[in-house]
């Protein structure tokens, strides 16, 4: 039996569940090319009308942030509470603002 080194490349699948909403990552699959990846994504991820549009992206093309740098990247936002509307006290009589 020969199975080695003939794998189809990996694709990430993004599905828009309904017009007006964003495409959301829903999983991955192997396919020989983009057209086949779209066909397979339809069969694998939208068997129950989960989508109205599909994007496929070669997994190798995605650049991800490094989990080790999570602190440096995201922690600085934690002490900037003045970026949130609830930081500001407004008199009640002003009503909704």
């Amino acid at each position, binding site marked *: 039996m020969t199975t080695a080194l003939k794998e*189809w490349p990996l694709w990430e699948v993004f599905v828009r569940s309904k017009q007006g909403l964003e495409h959301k990552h829903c*999983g991955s699959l192997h396919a020989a090319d983009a057209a086949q990846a779209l066909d397979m994504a339809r069969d694998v991820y939208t*068997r129950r009308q989960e989508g109205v549009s599909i994007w496929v992206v070669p997994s190798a093309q995605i650049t991800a942030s490094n989990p080790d740098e999570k602190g440096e990247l995201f922690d600085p936002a934690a002490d900037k509470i003045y970026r949130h509307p609830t930081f500001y006290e407004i008199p009640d009589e002003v009503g909704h603002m």
Partner: protein
Amino acid sequence: MYTQSFNVPDAPDGKTVPLAPSKEDAALQAAFDTRIDADGRIEPQDWMPEAYRKTLVRQISQHAHSEIVGMLPEGNWISRAPSLKRKAILIAKVQDEGGHGLYLYSAAETLGTSRDQMLEGLHSGRAKYSSIFNYPTLTWADVGVIGWLVDGAAIMNQIPLCRCSYGPYARAMVRVCKEESFHQRQGYEALLVMMTGTEEQKAMVQDAVDRWWWKCLAMFGPPDADSPNSAQGMRWGIKRVSNDDLRQKFVDATVPQAKVLGVTLPDPDLKWNEERQHHDYGRIDWNEFWETVNGNGPCNKERLATRVKAHNDGQWVRDAALAHARKQQSRNMKEAA
């Protein structure tokens, strides 16, 4: 969707990696433990102990194999379904199982194994899959009973896996569980219809229940006292509920369903225990279970041979698709040049 709620060791491949923890590893291990203790999630790029990774690869790939092999016993009945409606339902269910296998293979691949490696494990007989598929589907009633009991048992087991500590596995299980309840309900409903039929049809349902009941109880895995790996799985947040607790839940849920259906569950010791507020049930034949897990069930050879043949017969399709993709690519490059 199907899984054995425990993780049977695959046959040894002769490779053991000696572990020599360094100081850096100890710090990483501590960070990992803290996250697990806080019921946090682990994602593919995060550091994880090698044993956690290996356990997950084994469990998720066994789970994926079970989905794929699980297509075979029911697939046998597609051409013999009693009506066009039942045929369409069965095709949809079998297609779902294929999809579930794909979600799970993808989840396992995030841990650094490849699809080819996993398929090689399955096809060579080294990797395990759920023992339940090594029993034959003798009549149409078996298809209904597989939906009701086998999928029912699988659902019990899979719902807690939606909270598994490994993100991609948990997300795959959420997707699977959403699709799963159709599987159980279609099976139960098919049996309800048969039970309004002739005496012969009713007897067929009872016979199928008699043959599958004990095997479904065994699907939850050995008693807690005999599953040494369970504690580690619990510690890692991979397993959330013990084998015996899941089994008990399944028995308690199934008894009233059997009553509505009008069948008897084949266990003289099955009765309500007022004190425990649960049903007591009889002894499971673990010898038979292990015989089947270890390759000596009635259909082990046939299932594996069918699976390998299907894969080999599809080789030319995979080759052709790759050749086509390459040709398109080089044509596009020529046009661009």
